[in-house]
Every structure is written in C-alpha cells, then in structure tokens.
C-alpha cells in the first residue's frame, strides 16, 4: 500500500469508528429523501373549504359538493354567520369560505349569479392557486347546472385548449424535487465534511505530523478528498435506488452521464471544502464558511424556486452558482432523458467551475502548507 492508499484507509477507519457518524452518513439520505420527497411539494392539496349558506338549496349544495370532490379541496368546519367565518379564518381553522347569496337560483337564471369567496391570504402562493382552482371548478359546475335552462344553451365555437403534459403527466413536484435532493445530500457530505476533516487535524495537531512527513501536498489533498468522493458516490447510489424504487421516478437518461456530472460537481464541493479549510483554523469557522455559501447556493439554484422566476440581477448571479447547473443536469437526465448534447452548456459551466475551484484549492493548500 502506497502512502496515498494509507491515507485513504486511515480516513475510512476514522469515519467508520464513530458509530453516530456512520448512521448519519447512511441513514441521512434515506430519511431526507423520504421527508423532503414528500414534504417539499408545491402541489395544492387539502385546502379546507367552509360554506356559508343562509338558505341552503339544491344548487348551492351541488356547487359546494363539486368543490369538495376535487383532490385539492376538503370540507372545512360548517359556518353559520359571517362573523363566525371571520373567526375561523383568523384562527386558521379554515382556508376558504364560500358565501352563497340567499337568492342564488333566481340570480343565476337572470344571468347575474354572484358568489362571495373569503380566503386566507397569509400563504400567498397557496391562496392564489386555490382561488384560481376553485373558480375553475365553480364555473364548470355552474355551466353544467345552467345548461338545461332556457336561454342558457351552450353556444358553439371558440378556441379551446388541449393540454398535453410531457414527462410528468400527473404534475407532481416530487418528480423534480427528488433528483435535486440527491444533489443536496452530496453537497453536504462532501463540502462540509472535507472542510471539517482537514481543520480537525489542524485543531488536534495531527496535520503538523503529516506535514513533516514526506507526503506531498497533492497526496494529502487526494487522501482527504478521495474517501469523501467515494462516500458521495455511495450516497448517490443509495439515493438513486431510492428514487427509482421508492419514489418511482423514471431514470430516463444515462447513469454514466449522471455519474460524470456528479464527478464534476464533486470537484466543486470537495475543492470548496478544502478552500474553506485553508481559511479556517477551527472546525466552527470551517462549518460557517461552507454553510454561508451553501445557504445562498441552495436559494439561487432553482431547487425550490425556478431560476426563470427570479429578478434579472439574481438570474445573472446564478451563473456563478455551480449547484444551479448540476440541478439542471440531474433533472434533465432523470426526467427528460437529456443527453450530453442537450446538456452541453450546463455541463461545460459545471466543468469550468469544478476545474477552477479544485485548482484554486490545490494551489491555496500548497501555499498554506509550504
């Protein structure tokens, strides 16, 4: 065994000696995939709808029934008075209140049906989506109910839309979250642990012992990064299997391309961790340095919020964020079966980031060590 192999062996021994660490490294991806895969969803579900109907009739019943029957909405607590509706909204015990007028049928027959909706706007996005959907359901049902009436016969013609959703016909956000979560896991393992493991040796005084040995700085850097790269690929394998078997994600593209892209990305995260270690003398500092960059990388990566939806200035900023590109790549490979030609731009950007960051880390490391 050469010096490099010894270093790698030692790192593995240290990682596997701490049972808590082992559990964290191998259980974390599974738990996080499960939690994040299900929690991180912008799909609207279970919106509670209460009905305020002073004079209940067949029409209002049919309309509320139609709303409740959708997957988005469920019945909320019943409401008798407007002030009660207000109380429920304030306390957050219902999300939306349908307020039917006393003479709904007469009004509708005159083509003048009006229905009040009170909704909780605290969660702005949910409120907007819920409103649009409830309107659509009500309009459709009202049109159906009214279609038999005199003077309300459907008039023909007009442009109609036939939507066709590719890749993800049920439009679940899990499809797009799970590949991105895989990346998040790898980032945490590789960047944070690299930074900390180098600084830990500094703190404990063993780094000095290594530096008086004939190890070259390149051997040292590789010895520190190879074990974490291997762990990261282990994590990738676990997460990919879970994505396919548990979350039923189609892996349309090539596993080889996925691994290649992750390798490029690891150059960034491992290099970043090393860079953090060169500017830190305590693990606390290393964590905070990595953490600082991580928070903003995640936010500006399109992980939760589409890059296309950001203000222009922030969109430019995302070009400096390697996580943006790897997320674009894994989503493309997973869901659309994108190949190297389709992903040339993000792959190129990722490679540039990777080579840049890792070389910088190597250079800084050599300088600090010499």
């Amino acid at each position, binding site marked *: 065994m050469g010096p490099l192999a010894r270093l790698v062996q030692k790192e593995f021994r240290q990682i596997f000696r701490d049972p808590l660490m082992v559990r964290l490294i191998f259980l974390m991806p599974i738990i996080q995939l499960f939690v994040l895969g299900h929690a991180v969803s912008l799909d609207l579900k279970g919106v509670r709808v209460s009905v305020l109907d002073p004079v209940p009739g067949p029409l209002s019943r049919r309309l509320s029934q139609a709303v409740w029957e959708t997957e988005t909405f469920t019945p909320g607590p019943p409401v008798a008075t407007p002030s009660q509706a207000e109380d429920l*909204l304030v306390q957050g015990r219902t999300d939306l209140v349908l307020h039917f007028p006393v003479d709904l049928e007469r009004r509708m027959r005159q083509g003048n049906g009006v229905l009040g909706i009170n909704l909780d706007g605290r969660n702005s996005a949910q409120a907007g989506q819920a409103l649009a959907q409830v309107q659509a359901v009500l309009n459709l049902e009202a049109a159906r109910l009214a279609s038999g009436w005199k003077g309300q016969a459907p008039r023909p013609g007009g442009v109609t839309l036939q939507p066709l959703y590719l890749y993800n016909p049920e439009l679940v956000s899990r499809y797009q979250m799970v590949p991105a979560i895989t990346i998040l896991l790898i980032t945490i393992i590789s960047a944070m642990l690299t930074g900390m493991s180098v600084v830990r040796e500094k703190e404990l005084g063993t780094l000095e012992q290594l530096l008086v040995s004939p190890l070259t700085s390149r051997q040292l850097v590789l010895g520190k990064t190879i074990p974490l790269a291997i762990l990261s690929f282990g994590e990738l394998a676990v997460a990919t299997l879970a994505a396919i078997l548990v979350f039923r994600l189609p892996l349309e593209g090539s596993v080889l391309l996925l691994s290649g892209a992750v390798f490029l990305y690891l150059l960034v995260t491992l290099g970043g961790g090393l860079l953090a270690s060169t500017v830190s003398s305590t693990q606390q500092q290393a*964590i905070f340095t990595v953490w600082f960059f991580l928070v903003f990388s995640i936010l500006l990566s399109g992980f939760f919020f589409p890059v296309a939806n950001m203000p222009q200035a922030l969109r430019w900023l995302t070009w400096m964020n390697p996580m943006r590109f790897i997320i674009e790549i894994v989503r*493309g490979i997973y869901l659309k079966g994108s190949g190297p030609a389709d992903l040339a731009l993000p792959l190129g950007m990722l490679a540039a980031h990777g080579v840049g960051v890792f070389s910088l880390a190597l250079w800084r490391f050599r300088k600090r060590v010499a």
Partner: protein
Amino acid sequence: MLAVAAKEFLHILRDPRTLAVALVMPLAMVLLYGYAIDMELRALPIAVLDEEGGVRSRQLVEDVQSSGFIQVVERLSSREQIEPGFRHNRFLAALVIPAGHARRLGQGREAPVQVVVDGADGSTAATVGAYLEQAIALHNGRRLPGAGLKPPLRVEPRTWFNPQRVSAHFIVPGLTAVVMIMVCALLTSISIVRERETGTLEQVLTAPVQARELILGKLQPYLLIGALDTAVIFFVGRVVFQVPMNGSWLALAGYSLLYIWVALAMGLLISALVRTQQVAMMIALVVTLLPALLLSGFIFSHASMPLPLQVVGHLIPATWYLRIVRGVMLAGVNAWPREALVLAGMGVAITGLALKRFQKRLDD
C-alpha cells in the same frame, strides 16, 4: 455566569465568521428571500408553432403574449423542435395552432389548439396550463363575442390578511423561525461541543462554576444575538417589504423570546448528546434546521404532506411559532394561548432533558 457569558461574547466578536453567520447572514437571507422568492410565476417562456399562419392565429398569439404572464420566446417550424427545446430548457411549453384554425372558427365550430407542456416541474407546468387557459378565455371574449359558454356565475373573491397576495408578506415573517433555529441551535451546539472537543470545557469546569451556570452563561450571548436577528428581520420586513403589522409588537416580542428559548434548548440538547463538532453540525442540520425549513409550513403547507410528516410537522417548535407570527402580523390577533402553551411545554421538556444529559455527561 456573567464571566462565562462575557468570554463567549468575546469569542463571537473576535471571530468575524461567527459574526457573519450570526448577523450578516440573517440579513442577507431576508433580502434574498424577500426578493428572490416570488411564487407568483410571470413571464413564463413558451414557444409557438403556428401551422396556420393566418390572421386569426396571429391574433391568438398576440392575445396570449399580451396577457402579461406569458412570453413567446421562440417560433417553431415543426413539432420535432419541441422536445429538444424542453431538454435545453429554452421554453416551458409549446402552443400548437393547427392548420384550418380560421376555417373551423368561420364555420362556427370549436377550434382546438394544443399546448405541449414540459411537465418536469409539476407546479410550474400546472401554472403554465392555467395561464394559457385564462389567456384563451380572454381571447375568446375579445375576438369571438358570443362564442363559447358564458359563465352563469360570477365570483367575487376577497383575500384576507394579504389582499395582494404578496409573497414577501408570507415569507419574511416566517423566516424568523428558521433563522433563530440556525443561530440558536446550530451556533450554540457547535460552540459547546467545541469546548469539549478541544478540552477547554474541563478547564473551565475546574474553576468554581457550576455546570448549570456555565451552560446558562454560554447561552446568553446567543439569546441576545437571536433577539437581535429577530428584530432586524422584522425591521427589514416592515421597512423594505412593507409587511403589515396588524397586531401588537409587545405580544410578538414575548412570543419570539419564548421561541428563542426553545431553540437554544435544542442546541443545548444536541451538544449534550454528541462528542464531535462534525456530528453536532450534522445533527443540528438534519434534526433542527431542515425540518424548520421544510416541515413547519414556512413555505410548504402541511395539508399537502402525507400524514406521518404532518405529525412530525406538529412536533416542530417552528410550526407553532410560525402560526403565531403570521397571526399577529397579518391577521392582527394577539392572543395565541394554545400555540404559546405548546411552545412553553416544548421548552420545559427540552431544557430539562438537556440539563439532565449534560450533568450526566460531565459526571462521566
């Protein structure tokens, strides 16, 4: 105890990075979250394949374009160009107007147009579909009066608490819940474990301080920083993002202190359970920060989660604090006895557990 607190303060002040994480990062997060997270999608890029190429189809494209939410970024000449466009992420949907569009309309028949949507991002895809639906309804109303169904029911919506449905009003107050966990739980646990790892804890313990005093002393600066961060976030929220304040500041401050205590107790408990900073960091991240970010209702609503996660969500202090913050600021209700009781109960339980574990750890 004061001496310990003063020492901890010096540690923080002397280390610009801890200071950055404790003070600069929350501020930057508020600004970024406030500006970057606009959950109302607009200017969604789509492509158009106009197989007809007549006046009618041009009008349709114009109307779609002028609806404000959709931007036509590309003209296609064949269906084969659609998928490559999706794979390159050049556009999110392609509107296909088949030949014979005008003739069908002229004959008073339905004229279907197809929209192919990149469904990879499910929620964005649904939104694109809904926007196009709206734009086409508008087009029908403007250009083809009398065609299609006239809705017999008009809806008059009234959105409470956040009438314009501004994302920042929803996000920014909630951010306090996340930032306080970060500052109090993450910073505290790491700083205590660090003393253990480098052996200074033993040194301090040989001095005549009680373990209890030592710990409380260490917590004080983080309590202060947590409070300061909260104040900064609320201030920025009010001034920069005009988040309304319909309730009482005093009540809000009280609830926030309660929450900070719970967050500190969590940090303490972690530090009592682990030996190394690496493990403390991982646990703080996985057990406190990510749940506060993802399972608390901060962005993602509980209602759309499966039951087990909803249950877990309700075991997280951030969930309860979030309800209070949004309730006080947006709904203007100051009394949240149930939520406050839950938080207090969590605080007592976690603190007790942490102190007990700590005593045991130090006696070992």
